[in-house]
């Protein structure tokens, strides 16, 4: 069975329009720009998904990084192309055609390619012609004018670029504008069309080699600190800070030991990174064994983020900044020592079930989220899991009069409730027609000693013959 035609839709104006179609949809006659309603009328089996506008540029950047395997000069050719300058690189893969074939395979997408002496000509050939064509035989669409200008050209009888080239340029410039003439000359090769290759930024690295292997811990730490100063200079020149630091210690017998630390905020200064490395060394299961000594120590900063130089404030406003950086440094230190899963922040979840309405996430992963305001009375501590209790209560929805928890009897003197919390019926395919789960009736009770509890009855008396009671939270 053939796969269903697939299209991406985007909202333009008031209508949903097709932004991209696949081959099966194209065969059915759907085109880009058609309204989704018309497309569904033509092709009822169409499967559509919303378009993610940021995904295509990201994928193109990733593809450009992969194409660097063939040539160092790779430029983006928006919206959906790449320009590779393979001057002097073709011999590595045999011939130019073989290089192109390997690049197609590497890309993995359905792609077309074309060769030319100039970038503009290559772009025109691949989009508007075929690989072997002569440039002058390309249609005038290759100059990429707006549609009314193109129809003007067609009315004038100019169909191919060769026709345009025979006309005097001054007249064309007067009628259609300077950049049309500029593009035409670039395609014909009379003007240059340079490309701006993307340069991956050089990684931040520092290395030290020793003529005599060093084995003492103080010497190793002093060497690492020197490398951190070096890396800090490189990072300051580029106004970036490091989020992950990796140290590689090479022993003279060839074995390599690695240490890594991560920080929550980008850092340049060597002192905090040295403290974190000290924590990491202290928390290693086995101590670092230098063997006969280290003869090579290398530092790399794999992950960086922009970090502007900080203005040293002369007034007391600097305290706010030092406080936040102090908290960030504390989080880094505790994360390095105890692990990211043990330094946590609370994040809210959009559900009314109490135990699911929050989750803990590592503090190093990001700043805290804003909690929505709520006017419900909730306990300060939640027991996880709810503890079973035996309770005596009035039927059908009276609060418990006394209950026993962990062998201790509590006489309830004050009670408030019930607050009914029903299960999330919308997760069930049958919806509200099916029971889904048991409804809970929550009561806020206070016993004779003044302790305040949050207890619930698991299930209404209609749902269950003998509902059980649980203690779920402790109030202030």
């Amino acid at each position: 069975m053939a796969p269903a035609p697939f299209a991406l839709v985007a909202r333009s104006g008031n209508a949903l329009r097709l932004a991209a179609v696949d081959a099966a949809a194209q065969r059915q006659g759907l085109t880009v720009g058609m309204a989704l309603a018309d497309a569904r009328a033509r092709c009822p089996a169409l499967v559509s998904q919303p378009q993610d506008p940021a995904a295509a540029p990201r994928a193109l950047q990733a593809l450009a990084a992969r194409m660097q395997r063939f040539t160092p000069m790779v430029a983006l050719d928006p919206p959906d192309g790449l320009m590779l300058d393979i001057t002097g690189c073709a011999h590595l893969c045999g011939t130019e055609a073989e290089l192109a074939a390997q690049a197609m395979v590497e890309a993995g997408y359905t792609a077309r390619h074309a060769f030319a002496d100039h970038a503009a000509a290559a772009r025109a050939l691949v989009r508007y012609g075929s690989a072997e064509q002569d440039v002058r035989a390309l249609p005038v669409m290759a100059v990429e004018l707006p549609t009314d200008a193109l129809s003007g050209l067609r009315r004038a009888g100019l169909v191919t670029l060769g026709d345009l080239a025979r006309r005097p340029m001054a007249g064309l410039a007067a009628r259609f504008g300077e950049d049309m003439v500029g593009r035409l000359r670039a395609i014909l090769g009379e003007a240059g069309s340079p490309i701006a290759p993307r340069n991956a930024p050089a990684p931040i690295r520092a290395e030290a080699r020793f003529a005599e292997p060093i084995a003492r811990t103080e010497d190793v730490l002093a060497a690492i600190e020197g490398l951190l100063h070096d890396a800090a200079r490189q990072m300051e020149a580029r106004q970036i800070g490091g989020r992950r630091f990796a140290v590689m210690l090479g022993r003279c017998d060839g074995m390599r030991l690695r240490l890594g630390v991560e920080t929550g905020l980008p850092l340049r200064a060597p002192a905090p990174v040295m403290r974190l490395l000290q924590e990491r060394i202290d928390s290693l299961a086995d101590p670092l064994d230098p063997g006969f000594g280290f003869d090579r120590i290398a530092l790399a900063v794999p992950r960086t983020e922009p970090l502007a130089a900080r203005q040293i404030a002369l007034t007391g406003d600097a305290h706010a900044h030092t406080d936040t950086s102090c908290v960030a440094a504390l989080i880094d230190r505790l994360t390095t020592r105890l692990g990211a899963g043990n330094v946590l922040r609370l994040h809210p979840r959009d559900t009314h079930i109490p135990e699911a309405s929050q989750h803990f996430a590592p503090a190093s992963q990001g700043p805290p989220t804003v909690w929505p305001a709520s006017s419900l009375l909730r306990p300060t501590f939640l027991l996880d899991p709810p503890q079973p209790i035996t309770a005596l209560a009035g039927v059908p929805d009276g609060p418990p009069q006394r209950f026993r928890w962990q062998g201790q009897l509590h006489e309830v003197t004050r009670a408030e409730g019930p607050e009914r919390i029903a299960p999330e019926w919308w997760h069930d395919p049958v919806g509200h027609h099916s029971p889904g789960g048991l409804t809970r009736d929550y009561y806020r009770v206070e016993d004779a000693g003044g302790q305040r509890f949050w207890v619930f009855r698991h299930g209404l008396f209609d749902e269950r013959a003998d509902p059980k009671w649980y203690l779920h939270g402790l109030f202030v």
Partner: protein
Amino acid sequence: MLTAPADIHSPCSHPSGSLVIPKLSRGQLHEIHLSAAALATAMAFAFTASGTPAGASMPILLVRAPRLAGIRAMPFGEGLAGLGIDPARLLLVEARDNLGLLRAVLDGARCSGLAAVVAETWGPILEYDLTASRRLVLAAEASRVPVIVLRGCGVTGKRAEPRASAAHTRWAIRPAPSTALEARAPGPPALEAELLRQRGGPSGMRWRLVWNDEYGCFQEDRASGVAIPLQQPALSGAVVPLSPLRAGPAASLAA
């Protein structure tokens, strides 16, 4: 640099004869003794009695060792929001054992950007001795962060015995019955705070505190008249600094 402790109320007598409850002052170490079911009450007291208005958005560090806890409970964000504390401020650190817990508390005490450091401990801790508490006091004085150590009963029911420590104040917090609203609903939360020990001040007093929603803190319940000052008002004329009273035997500590 050691500075004179701030926020201490001199032992002058209040006109009514009872003494004003001291706050959990900044830059000091405070201990709170509690039982397992009083966890929420003591935690709310620790969070709100040390507040400074300027620190209303700074993070609160809560250090726990969940494996050693007397009760398996976790902080609930909506409940904290009901107390007026933004749950996004809470920074939760879970240590594996008491030594890791104390080290994390010491690190937190050195960080000046925190509103408070609260440690939740259960049972007697060997590592928390005079030296450890003295180190905490020095760190807290340097960074002006209040450090509050909650000492609850352990899993086996062993109470955390009050040991010699450099803490500024030592409290015992117990929940108290609240004044009922209509239809027997529980009223605003109430607790009984007993000041077991105060460095450089009187101790032994008990206060009944009631939660005040407007101010977001516990306040003395003047109407009930339960406050029992254990010493006489000062003699006329001279203001004599009273020597600190040691707490009586632990009979007053509810299990």
